[in-house]
């Protein structure tokens, strides 16, 4: 199904159309939540519907680190390596995820399932060291727990609690 025929995308565009340019960021977020990323033809549609030049759509889409203009894994593992997590052993978490996923930070698995990212502070420092799988936070992990988590994500299973 091409995005232009996608009813959910059409609904999102209708919802944000009255806002014009001020609807751009929430519209892109909603579209990405539905499609997983922001394909070029959808960006063009968004610009047309909201009255925003395509260059400006891309200006915004590429400004924010959580918006993706290239395909990305359906599951994104974001490992925090900022100061609070560093002080609690985050390098071991990252290493465990690299090994279990077989990915370097920034890479996506060939089947398109998982992307690994190193992330600045996730704002959950009381649970350091932590990582996120999509929108879910996992905290106070040691390397073994991080590895179990990453293996489950790689296998397409629900992350263990």
């Amino acid at each position, binding site marked *: 199904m091409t995005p232009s025929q996608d009813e959910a995308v059409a609904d999102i565009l209708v919802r944000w159309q009255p806002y014009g340019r001020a609807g751009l960021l929430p519209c892109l977020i909603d579209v990405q939540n539905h499609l997983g990323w922001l394909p070029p033809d959808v960006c063009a549609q968004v610009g047309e519907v909201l009255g925003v030049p395509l260059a400006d759509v891309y200006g915004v889409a590429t400004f*924010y680190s959580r918006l993706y203009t290239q395909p990305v894994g359906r599951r994104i593992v974001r490992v925090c390596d900022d100061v609070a997590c560093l002080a609690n052993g985050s390098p071991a978490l990252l290493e465990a995820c690299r090994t279990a996923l077989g990915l370097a930070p920034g890479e996506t698995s060939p089947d398109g399932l998982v992307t690994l990212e190193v992330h600045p502070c996730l704002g959950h420092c009381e649970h350091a060291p932590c990582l996120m799988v999509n929108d879910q936070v996992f905290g106070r992990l040691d390397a073994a*727990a991080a590895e179990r988590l990453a293996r489950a994500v790689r296998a397409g299973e629900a992350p263990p609690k």
Partner: protein
Amino acid sequence: MTASADRPTWQAIPGYEAHLLRRVGQVDPTSLADYEAHGGYRALRAALEMTPAEIIEMVKASGLVGRGGAAFPTGIKWESAARQPVTPRYVVCNADESEPGTFKDRVLMEGDPFAIVEAMTIAAYAVGAEQGYIYVRGEFRAAYERLANAVAAAREAGYLGKRVLGSDFSFDIELRRGAGAYVCGEETALFESIEGKRGMPRQKPPFPTERGLFGRPTVINNVETFANVPHIVLNGPDWFRRIGPPDAPGPKLFCVSGAVERPGVYEGPMSVTLRQLVEVCGGMRPGRKIQAVLVGGAAGTFVPAEHLDTPVSFEALRAIGASLGSGAVLVVDDSVDMLEVVERITRFFAHESCGKCYPCQLGTQRQWEIVRRWQAGHHRPDDAERLQDIAHAMREASICGLGQTAASALMSVLPRMVTRFEGGNHVSASDADH
């Protein structure tokens, strides 16, 4: 092992009463009825009996200053927006909490979301705004959902919308999500983001109270700042001033993290010392010693162990060249290599600089390069001078707080970093161009 904690990670410092955290963990954050049963919306009802000017006077008299980091007097901000002859006016809640080591706003939004909605409604009544926005950090999904639920429930019950509680005052709130940009916590960058542009800061003046969101007079406050407002309206400015030292009145949330036994959000007066905060957290892990405390997050400064008895009031911290900023108190123990910590901080700013102004765009890259060169074992005799030069340029010439503070943590440990390289590992000027 999810982030839903096995024990509360928020509490008042022993001996002090919780005000901001009073309902967190005690009420169902999705229930308006529970909020009302625990004192919720009493402040708004009281506020609607007063004139807007009376509320502004109360907030001014309380001495409340912004809890997002800049510590600007809240009442003066409100008064300035209320005096503008232009309408519409806006009230914006800055919930883009992104300072490394800071997580208090998230705890408030997740645990007591109606309080933020009520406080914004009071602010809107005081300054004559009919529309509000809450801009929530993209990573904070639970906080976003709780706030969205709270706004919908408040609207349903007549606390938001046309003619709030039957008064002549109308106000409503829309939520916006961030999408991963630290700079959007800067107030004018946040406006740009809501307006559908790249989140780049604006030149000031004009200040937001004059020309803010959509070019209109705007009051923008941090989540924790708003959370103080209902307490001030209900208990009065004198009550507020009795909490904490004279130069820093009111309750404050401290985000204590790092190498302590029980990291979390702790509420107390700003007369507490850094050492007390560490002790409240159960102290250091066994066998570990404090190397330094990063106060104020990545934009803050390292306070060495010998200054742990400093109270966290504005004056006392200023005297040792530090600032509480957003309330982050991040403890680094002796097992961590300070050079690695500094590399994280300089990388963070290089990554998050928006690129609008050159001092920050270039300066953040340069200081990260130099720190990475140190990690590779190469030090040059003039590194300290170069870094001081970069820091000066960023501090004085950057448009916004990001660039103005991007060197402060590194500068606070520069003498130690330089000492570390004395007597070896120097490269000659011809080996490297930076």
